[in-house]
């Protein structure tokens, strides 16, 4: 559904953000996009949405060149930015204004999501709401558009603790076999069990684009008392529960994916990770 090919991008001469980057994403998946600060996660989302133009390479979204911003693409794509813009109108008027752009917008879903987020009144002015409240309204709106592609940039930033739980719940309600959801975030723990595709961006390239099952097929994540293992260790971290290990999965044991450990293991073993996963890329 999203195809980036040989993308080169820089904001100014001399500082390269993307260097010959290629990435292919398909529907029916919730992807997590991870990378250090300044790796270019937001820029990548903007290129997919047609808001930034690469100097070379092609960005195809829903079969359209993203930079052309064709209506066929825009009606089936929603990009939730990190800082949400809201006009000085009520929630009810916001829906009246913006929902017609999305032919599959579902009012009932929108009401249900707002209800779960405990936003009671549709008559409140958006500008009178706190940052977190505004974000809840726009997240609810984004999910209720039922677009085929949903790009979310740090959606849980600014949400209070109970709302993060609600966010996870409504994401499982909104995911379906067709929809492509891409979430860029640093809040790994928020998304641990939601994500089935992991994309890691580093130094202008895609370092990893793999399915969760694929990752646990190739790597083991475990907590052990001793580090005596015959499997090559990619990453080790000590904490109160013991040693947190990431190893190559030579004995074909299925373990639970830990995205935080994975990220650290990938950063420390870029070449080996590439060897293990490059058949996929």
């Amino acid at each position, binding site marked *: 559904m999203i195809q980036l090919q040989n993308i080169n991008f820089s904001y100014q001469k001399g500082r390269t953000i993307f260097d010959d980057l290629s990435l292919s994403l398909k529907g029916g998946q919730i992807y997590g996009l991870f990378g250090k600060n300044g790796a270019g996660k937001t820029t990548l989302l903007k290129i997919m949405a047609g808001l930034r133009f690469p100097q070379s390479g092609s960005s195809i979204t829903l079969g359209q060149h993203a930079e052309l911003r064709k209506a066929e693409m825009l009606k089936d794509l929603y990009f939730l930015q990190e800082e949400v813009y809201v006009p000085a109108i009520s929630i009810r008027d916001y829906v009246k204004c913006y929902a017609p752009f999305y032919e599959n917008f579902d009012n009932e879903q929108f009401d249900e999501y707002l209800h779960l987020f405990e936003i009671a009144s549709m008559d409140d002015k958006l500008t009178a709401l706190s940052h977190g409240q505004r974000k809840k309204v726009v997240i609810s709106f984004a999910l209720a558009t039922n677009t085929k592609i949903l790009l979310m940039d740090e959606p849980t930033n600014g949400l209070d603790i109970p709302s993060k739980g609600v966010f996870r719940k409504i994401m499982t309600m909104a995911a379906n076999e067709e929809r492509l959801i891409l979430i860029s975030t640093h809040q790994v723990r928020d998304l641990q069990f*939601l994500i*089935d595709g992991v994309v890691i961006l580093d130094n202008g390239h895609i370092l990893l684009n793999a399915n969760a099952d694929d990752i646990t097929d190739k790597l083991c994540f*475990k907590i052990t008392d001793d580090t005596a293992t015959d499997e090559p260790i990619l990453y080790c971290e000590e904490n109160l529960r013991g040693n947190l290990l990431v190893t190559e999965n030579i004995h074909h044991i299925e373990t639970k994916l830990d995205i935080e450990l994975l990220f650290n293991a990938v950063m420390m073993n870029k070449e080996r990770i590439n060897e293990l996963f490059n058949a996929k890329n």
Partner: protein
Amino acid sequence: MNFNDNKAIYLQIAEWVFEQILNGKWKEGDRIMSVRELGTLLVVNPNTILRSYDQLQKMEVIVNRRGVGYFVAPDATDKIISYRRKQFVEKDVPAFFKTMKLVRMSWEELEGLYKKS
């Protein structure tokens, strides 16, 4: 639901389903929650639930009636018990014996404890 050990999530969910069946919350022959419903209940990606259900189907604990939904197999309890037994014998028992030897516990002592329990 808390996922806390090293085991893959889809297997932990399968075991959660075993619990529901063994303690009678989900009865043999009953229709169970859809993939999406269970995903929302446990706050887990629906694709992960699908993988659990595939596994449970392979183990013949649940059956899929196309277009209708998933059902608890008529002999699910027996299937689960024999699976659990196998796990117990292959994994738990050896670890238990190892600890017994470590703490130098005799059979007689163990038997006494068993009778008291």
